[in-house]
């Protein structure tokens, strides 16, 4: 007998509204049907209506956890549209905040993952350690969530000598804790029982279903935008891509802890090598961008984040397209959940580090004709052709 279990849009295991329908036989899952679109906010459209500088603030609000990486990608995109160079010091500060954000995002996820398998003690301990990062971010930017550090042409706040010392001190403490979790996770029996071999995603499947970020790297695919197509100063920082050959939830835990350790190393490198100089190139609040098309990708904590922009010579962008990593990971997630137990649903869903508010897409439904379609690349190309004739 197959029972249909709806999970979401409201469910204790999901922190954001999303619906999954599980068809189960006994305790085993036979089929999963995801349904996205509970949180669509029309951000891409809103960006077309505002000037480039105003869009910066909208892009910061695409995601609650990885807000800074969205602005980073957006400013990189606009700077490429304008063929603009930013001061060296600004690059270092951008990288410090980006990596601190990765640390906070991964630690948050680690806590949630432990909570999903019922290990509440580790959840509390990991979130306590995350406070070190949150305090540093507050010290640097004045905020705990939306840092508003990046701006077109540089960064808005400088890092003082005193702050540098505090960052180094915090990183030393955090490195110790991270090494402890790295040692503990594959050893503690109850964690291993719940995660080893759970939510398997083979290397071929991961490539075929276009998984992204730590989910992909945990399936033993060496792919990281920071290594493949270095932006800012990742080449100089000698960044290393972390992979795991376990292809399961434990692999994803280990990859993320390894990435945290790598992030700590990058932050220390940035703080030690930061040159003196200006932090931003001043621009007027309203400026025109020449007719151009550009594409930027950066590595968000959840995977590859892509911004594609078209400018038409005015002070507003003609089109901004955002592709977030969670959307790329959802087909892989459905594959992972096949033949798993009900008890594994929360940890497997959590293992891709879902951020549904960035994921949601608009679906057009023509009620009269019963037709359903969503925005796709050919549709945009068609629109661009209509506008520019090319």
């Amino acid at each position, binding site marked *: 007998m197959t029972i249909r279990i709806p999970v979401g849009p409201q469910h204790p295991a999901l922190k954001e509204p999303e619906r999954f329908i599980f068809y189960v036989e006994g305790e085993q899952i036979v089929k999963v049907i995801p349904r996205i679109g509970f949180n669509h906010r029309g951000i891409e459209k809103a960006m077309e209506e505002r000037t480039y500088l105003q869009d910066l603030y909208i892009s910061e609000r695409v995601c609650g956890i990885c807000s800074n990486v969205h602005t980073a990608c957006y400013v990189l995109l606009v700077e490429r549209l304008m063929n603009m160079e930013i001061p060296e010091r600004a690059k270092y500060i951008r990288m410090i905040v980006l990596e601190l954000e990765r640390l906070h995002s991964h630690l948050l996820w680690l806590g949630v993952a432990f909570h999903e398998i019922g290990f*509440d003690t580790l959840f509390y301990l990991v979130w306590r350690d995350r406070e070190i990062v949150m305090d540093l971010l507050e010290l640097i930017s004045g905020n705990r969530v939306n840092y508003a550090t990046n701006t077109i042409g540089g960064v808005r706040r400088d890092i003082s000598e005193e702050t540098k010392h505090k960052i180094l001190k915090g990183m030393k403490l955090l490195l110790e804790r991270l090494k402890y979790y790295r040692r503990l996770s594959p050893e503690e029996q109850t964690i291993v029982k719940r995660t080893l071999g759970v939510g398997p995603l083979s290397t071929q499947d991961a490539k075929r279903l276009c998984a992204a970020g730590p989910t992909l790297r945990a399936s033993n695919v060496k792919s990281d935008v920071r290594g493949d197509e270095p932006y800012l100063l990742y080449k100089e920082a000698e960044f290393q891509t972390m992979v795991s050959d376990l292809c399961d939830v434990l692999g994803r835990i280990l990859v993320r802890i390894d990435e945290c350790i790598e992030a700590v190393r990058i932050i220390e490198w940035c703080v030690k090598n930061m040159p003196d100089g200006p932090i931003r190139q001043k621009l007027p609040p309203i400026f025109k961008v020449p007719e151009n098309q550009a594409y930027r990708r950066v590595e968000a904590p959840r995977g590859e984040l892509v911004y594609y922009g078209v400018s038409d010579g005015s002070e507003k962008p003609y089109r901004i397209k955002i592709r977030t990593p969670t959307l790329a990971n959802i087909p892989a997630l459905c594959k992972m959940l096949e033949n798993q137990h009900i008890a594994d649903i929360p940890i497997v869903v959590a293992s891709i580090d879902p951020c549904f508010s960035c994921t949601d897409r608009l679906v057009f439904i023509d009620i009269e004709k019963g037709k359903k379609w969503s925005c796709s690349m050919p549709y945009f190309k068609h629109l661009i052709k209509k506008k520019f004739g090319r």
Partner: protein
Amino acid sequence: MLDAIITILQVLIFPGVLFAIILALLYEWVERKFKARLQNRIGPLYTGWHGILQPFADIIKLWSKEDIVPAEADKTMFTIAPMLALASQLISFLIIPVVSVYALVHFEGDLALLAFLSTVYLIAAGIGGLSSNNRFSAIGAGRSIIQHVGYEIPLLFVYASAAFIAQSWSLSKIVEYQVKTGVPLIAFLGIGFGISIISLLAFIERIPFDIPEAETEIVAGWLTEFSGKKYAFFWLADDVQLLVGAGITAALFLGGPCGPVPGIPIVDEILYVIYFIIKTVIIVLILASIEASSARYKITQAVSGFWKYLTPLSILQLLIVFALRLYGVI
């Protein structure tokens, strides 16, 4: 007449129902506070001294809430289940020795009655979950019963080992035996004590065996549809269950309420109660520290673990007891 009144007061107030409820809520506070400190939290803080009245406040708040029965639920069963759960645990408490070597209710075979009452609690959970007509409740109830199949048999073997040493199926007689010989049974039943603690964790549905009410998987399991007064009943039943579980373990392995006493009537009884509280609190702290240092197992892992490891170990324990008897050690 006077005897009858005293008996009724004993059953209702001390050491009966009221005492059990107050003690159970205090134990909940001990457990919550201790676990919170292990997890680097503060725990209950504002109600009373260090939040000691928090469980009482929670229960009173739940009592004052609206009584809701889901439209789809089987109303009779849905109402009976919480009462059955609390009643079974309160009756169990009367069988545990607290103020003297002998419990309020004691007869040959009361240990079997205790095992039966623990099953009654499971039945209450089962009918509560199934009658609420909710998918999560149904899965939770199913898991609860499957888990019971896992831990009941090793637990009964351990009871049997203790009963065999004391040559009696009465909990009070087992305590009496320990007082007579002056050696707590943990000396012979080391393995049994471990099995008993693990089974107790499964019985009171705490991490790593909180599978039937796993929050992140099936909301609250068989408790999902219960709210207000009915939930308060289950909450109290859960707390009394912890007290009863700790009480049985203390009585079987640690000599129950017994310890060195001067022999003056009233002072003896006060000391007995204090010994009982110390021993059971130690067991509650052991349970809480296990709870704080592990993740939740899956139902398949839990049951196969019980059958693969605990059942053979409990049979081994029984054989050890037979051998000790054979060579005249006990």
